[in-house]
């Protein structure tokens, strides 16, 4: 049986993010105490004791268009084309099933979908470059195709979790 690992919230944004048009940005504020735990694990990482794993959650994603696909970038330089920064890409998310999950009479009770992407390597790179000293992560969502307002795509909360290494 897999060993149960301790997971806790590291940070979250404030407010709902509307995904309309060509991109959406949000800022995840990190908790100082939990961030110190992550940094300590990164500094003291060994083969025997790997560093914490870090995940980004896009919670309560709701909307009416299942065909929406978007890329998630962490701390992509502002003004640059994020596609030129694959090192900042956390992953891609396809919203297949989101319409059904948005309906209150269905099994998700209208709470939408939650997506999880691992960003351990991105966090490690930020740590090595000294960019993890700040208390925020910039999250950029870039849809493959512009999202119309009628699609009503929203993300209830963007949060970051740490898991013991």
């Amino acid at each position, binding site marked *: 049986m897999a060993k149960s690992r301790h997971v806790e919230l590291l940070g*979250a944004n404030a407010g709902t993010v509307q995904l309309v048009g060509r991109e959406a940005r949000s800022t995840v504020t990190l908790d100082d105490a939990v961030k110190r735990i992550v940094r300590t694990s990164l500094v003291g990482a060994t083969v025997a004791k790997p560093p914490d794993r870090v995940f980004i959650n896009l919670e309560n994603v709701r909307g009416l268009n299942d065909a929406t696909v978007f890329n998630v970038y962490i701390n992509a330089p502002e003004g640059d084309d994020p596609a030129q920064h694959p090192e900042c890409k956390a992953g891609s998310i396809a919203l297949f099933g989101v319409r059904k999950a948005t309906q209150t009479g269905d099994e998700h009770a209208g709470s939408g979908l939650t997506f999880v992407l691992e960003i351990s390597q991105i966090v490690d790179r930020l740590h090595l470059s000294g960019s993890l000293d700040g208390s925020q992560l910039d999250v950029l969502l870039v849809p493959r195709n512009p999202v119309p307002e009628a699609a009503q795509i929203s993300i209830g909360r963007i949060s970051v979790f740490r898991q013991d290494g």
Partner: protein
Amino acid sequence: MGLGLAPGDITLPRLCSPFELGLGPGASLKFVVMFNPPAALALDWALMIAAMMPPLVIASLRHIGDRSFARRRWRAMTLFGAGYAIVWMAAGTALLPLALVCRFAARETLLPLASGAAVAFAWQISPAKQWCLNRCHRRPALAAFGVAADRDAFAFGLSQGVWCVGACWALMMVPLLSGQAHLLAMMAVALLLTAERIEPPAAPGWRFQPPSKALRIAVAQLRMRFKGSAQTR
């Protein structure tokens, strides 16, 4: 009144008492009201809620706990519990007097219980019940920091309380109308409420929805235990 603390003399809350809340033959409404002061009824109602509701809020508490910072977890869950309890206590101000009046009007008959059971059944199969039950499954986004986090946790408790009352009020009347069978009715209703809460949301409509998921789990558990016992012999 309430739980007695004298050694060897534990008393039941009056709602569970076989003394029928003072509803003996010839008792006047004034006597019944005097015999059941609001504070005592409120305490007994709170005990009833505390005994019956925890299985219904476990998933919501887990949601709050998982999505809060570790240092705020208990605070968030307490705020949720407070919001939830406030709504159920408010509901008690309507349900308890209603139950008392029904039992007073037809005391020493099964009419209050029969009527309550009929109303509960009608509500159970109604679209309104399913509509409320669907909303009990909601897991909203919650702020993580500061006052907003406290506000969201409390508001989540309030909203869950509202939908829970909407879904469960009719079944909760059954123990209140059961007289001497109050404790038994409480246990049966608590089991039924827990079983229906683990069913997934469904489209509202007029239909009887048995707690099939709970039954399947119970059957699977029994089969596992019998299989395990057979293998050890």
